[in-house]
């Protein structure tokens, strides 16, 4: 009897703590949820780049997102969620969500090393600790495997956006950290700006002479050829090793822009497509 009472006492809060209706605003949180066996009632629209959502999310209601609050609050309320997994990008909308009696948890790893802990955190919040630990462990192992056998560490410049003055990814950005972990020696190593991006002087680029330049533009498929040509014609980059050896690449999915659960796959892709190490 006592055992049952204790079990109920322990299980009850756990049962309370596992909300049934969950909305995941980012691809990372959405993919993590299905990875631990939870299907959200709503997901956020994927901004920028191609969709990389799990097939298991097909048919789930997609909410359009806009700055700075994220989803339209009325649409969100209609879904009647108990929990929203959000990211700091949409932090301005959190108070409104909380006032609607919705629990809001921020989860957006900004470094590779943060992926596993965040997966576990999500698992804890939705009451799927065991599954989350398993997923986190497998993701961690996949990342480690993806990083095996790095043969060289080319100097890499990673750039965001298009235009005459693109921003360089720093070490404290998702993409910067990922490329770094994939074996790239970031040209911007040592710089640390809030936000993770900064305009880097072209003089520095010339002096550092990168082996590889990766550009992450904000654009659709059809825009890629034009952007590629423009970047390869840049008179400054042309004279770097990257330009001379035709190693200026465009990365058009958002894999370098935000965290994902298939990080290992992304690292492998970066290594084979761009770093060739």
């Amino acid at each position, binding site marked *: 009897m006592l055992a049952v009472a204790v079990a109920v006492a322990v299980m009850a809060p756990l049962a309370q703590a596992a909300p049934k209706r969950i909305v995941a605003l980012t691809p990372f949180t959405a993919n993590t949820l299905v990875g631990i066996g939870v299907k959200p009632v709503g997901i956020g629209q994927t*901004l*920028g780049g191609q969709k990389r959502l799990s097939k298991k999310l097909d048919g789930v209601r997609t909410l359009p*997102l*806009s*700055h700075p609050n994220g989803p339209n609050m009325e649409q969100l309320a209609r879904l009647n969620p108990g929990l929203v997994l959000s990211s700091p990008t949409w932090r301005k909308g959190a108070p409104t969500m909380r006032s609607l009696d919705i629990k809001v948890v921020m989860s957006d790893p900004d470094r590779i090393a943060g992926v596993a802990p965040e997966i576990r955190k999500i698992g804890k919040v939705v009451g799927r600790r065991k599954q989350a630990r398993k997923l986190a462990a497998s993701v961690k192992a996949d990342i480690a495997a993806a990083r095996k056998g790095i043969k060289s560490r080319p100097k890499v410049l990673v750039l*965001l*956006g*298009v*235009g*005459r*003055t*693109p*921003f360089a990814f720093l070490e404290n950005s998702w993409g910067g950290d990922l490329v770094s972990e994939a074996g790239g020696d970031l040209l911007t190593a040592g*710089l640390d*700006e809030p936000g993770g*991006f*900064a*305009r*880097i*002087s*072209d*003089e*520095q680029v*010339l*002096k550092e*002479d990168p082996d590889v330049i990766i550009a992450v*533009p*904000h*654009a659709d498929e*059809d*825009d*890629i*050829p*034009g*952007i590629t*040509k*423009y970047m390869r*014609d*840049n*008179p*400054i980059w042309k*004279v770097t090793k990257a330009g001379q050896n035709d190693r200026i690449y465009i990365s058009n999915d958002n894999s370098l822009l935000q965290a994902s659960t298939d990080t290992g796959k992304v690292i492998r892709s970066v290594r084979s497509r761009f770093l060739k190490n």
Partner: protein
Amino acid sequence: MVVRRTLVVVAAAAAALAAAAVSLALGAVDLPLSDVIDALTGSLGEGSTRQIVLELRLPRTVEAAAVGAALGVAGALLQGALGNPLASPDVIGVTGGAGFGAVLILIVFPGSIALLPVGALAFGLLAAGLVFAIAWVGPDAGGVGKLILAGIAVGALFGAGTTAVLTAYPDRVQSAIFFIAGGLSSDGWRELEIVWPYFAVGFVAAICLMRPLDRLALGDDVAASLGVRPRLIRLIAGVGAAFLAAAAAAIAGLLGFLGLVVPHVVRLAGGTSSHTFVVPVSAISGAALLMAGDTLARTVKAPIELPVGPFMVALGVPLFLLLLRRAV
């Protein structure tokens, strides 16, 4: 009086030369001065130093000088033609139009990114054209009040267009920010090659307008009685200013402040509104200010490049306030 004016001209020229020298000598990468000089005189061999000096710093310095001069002159032309101290390239809608054109390409048609200066230029001129078309029909055609109101309306229209585009593509906003904040890029000679004819037309128009603009000083009636055609002069001044400002925006983003404040500083320093003084000295001073501001923007937090706007304000406003206090 003439002595004072001569002093101001000499001071401005000296400042411009100094700013140019500093702009060439300093940058994100520390280069010994002797190397910089060697690179400029052609006696340095191939290498990154030569590239940095000749293909980064030199075009950038020239661009800064051209844009600074263009904006200074555009402001002087407009303030003279409209007889209004608040006139600047923003007022004839050019800045708003150029901003819209640039954002359109950066965000909606990024595949055509090579056409960015063309887009900014085209829409800048289109906006100015709209302003002139509106202001030149109906009663009081070409009158100052009408021109200013039309400029504000058209500027607001394109500004709203820009906001709409940014809102529709929120994830691409970052691409546009640097343009909107205003700043030069190290694009070598690429962009200058596209826009230099527009600078040329604008500067030539400015030279031809210096004396006629003086004759507008006592009002349209006096000007008309002297055989001067105030509305025609206003139109040519507007067109010249539009060309200069649109070309400037095409390569340096939105830097309206220069066009507004530099002519005032020049007038206060020289103690005269005569355009044969104000126009050339605004050109020299604008060039000096932007070269100095750009050098700071490139070096203060090297190797990170900051937008140039705040540095120009930091340099220009104290000087302006100082002169303003003395002038009363």
